[in-house]
């Protein structure tokens, strides 16, 4: 186990800026599902763009969170938050929603992570230390990880206690194997390629060695390595 040199909580970009970086990754004309947690922050950065958000509870063209007088108990997202409609909106059942997800119709899923492996395996639903055994909050995560054409993970680079979250093999129970395409953290942008993990962007002021120090598997440094731009 690498001893992290840089506690993730004190450096790097904020969750909001991580979300902004993910938003820049999404092409116009895309259908996108934002997982529960940090991924929902991405929605703040794509307002007005030609991107359709799916809420897996059964909605396309989900709008921003509802303000006080817009709140409608029948109109919520998968995080129990009241939301609004955008033009072109439609509703459907959960069965049809997951037909969309599993059937390969979603262009992008943005998911949180507990661990991501160098092969792109994702663990996001169960921490053994929780004592919950083999049961846990799977929700839509496994379907999204398997079904979306592109999976972007947005996560702090290390845990609160400084352990790497980007690991050689996931120790936590898997969400899906070989599903992650891109990892955006508070420190770096890393693409999962067939040879391993390609470090493409790093936050200003950090070196590739800094990133490697808090990343368990050996990183491939991109010949086009750039500063993470927002």
């Amino acid at each position, binding site marked *: 186990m690498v001893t992290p040199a840089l506690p993730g909580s004190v450096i790097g970009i904020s969750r909001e800026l991580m979300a902004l970086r993910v938003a820049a990754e999404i092409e116009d004309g895309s259908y996108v599902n934002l997982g529960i947690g940090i991924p929902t922050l991405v929605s703040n950065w794509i307002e007005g763009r030609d991107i359709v958000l799916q809420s*897996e509870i059964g909605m396309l063209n989900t709008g921003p969170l509802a303000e006080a007088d817009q709140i409608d108990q*029948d109109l*919520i997202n998968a995080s129990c938050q009241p939301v609004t409609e955008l033009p072109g909106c439609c509703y459907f059942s959960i069965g049809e929603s997951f037909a969309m997800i599993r059937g390969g119709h979603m262009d992008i899923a943005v998911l949180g992570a507990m661990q991501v492996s160098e092969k792109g395996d994702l663990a996001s639903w169960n921490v053994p230390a929780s*004592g919950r055994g083999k*049961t846990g*909050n799977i*929700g839509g995560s496994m379907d999204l990880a398997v079904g979306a054409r592109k999976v972007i993970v947005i996560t702090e680079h290390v845990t609160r206690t400084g352990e790497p979250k980007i690991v050689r093999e996931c120790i936590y129970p898997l969400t899906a194997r070989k599903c992650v395409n891109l990892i955006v953290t508070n420190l770096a942008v890393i693409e999962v390629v067939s040879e391993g993990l390609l470090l493409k962007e790093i936050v200003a002021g950090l070196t590739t060695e800094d990133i490697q120090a808090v990343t368990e598997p050996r990183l491939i440094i991109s010949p086009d390595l750039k500063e993470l731009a927002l």
Partner: protein
Amino acid sequence: MNRAYPSVDEAIADVFDNATIALGGFFTAGSPIRLTEALANQGAKNLTIIVQSVGIGNWEVNMLLENRQVRKVICNYPFFRSASRVSLFEQQLRAGEVECEVYPLGTFIEKLRAGGAGIAGFYTPTGVGTLVAEGKECRAFNGKEYLLELAISPDFAFVHAYKGDPYGNLVYRETSRNYNPEMAMSANITIAEVENLVGPGEINPDQVHTPGIFVQRVVKVDRPDIDVTIEVSPEEMNT
């Protein structure tokens, strides 16, 4: 055909001990609160409850858990999001008083649809290579691996709709549709609580979401308007 019942109590009176019951809805949207209340009063025991969650998302299950009416829960999101918050269900589960079966959401709903559609089982890519695959057949089609998942057909389904007619035709509103259509299909007896009970012919036939053939009983209820925002801290939702 008049499938309208005069009260929720009469509509659920014959729910029996050991029954399997699917509960539609999620959080404030489309949850059959009134039918679940009635079931808590009615007292059937040893129930298997099929529901999205037993944390915040479907807090109404707590009414049944408090009564010790539940033997098993089949769901996709059993706990509070934060591992540090322990729900009544998690307490009972850790104490060995209830059982829990968890499926990925898409598998969960597809099992119910299969049960309603006469399909015995189906091959899904979801869960391959995970704990979900334990004990299940894994099989490759065109070079990709899939798990065999089997249908579920509950004895009862409780659903909530915006509008219904005496034929059992249902119309849902916005995201309150969610689990309700597939659960309505899946059950032997589906009981719908509806905010508006209208006459035959008053629903535009192109706009029916659940055809009446899937709904055996319809009962008018007051629209539940329950503020559960207190349960959800912003910190919890964004962690």
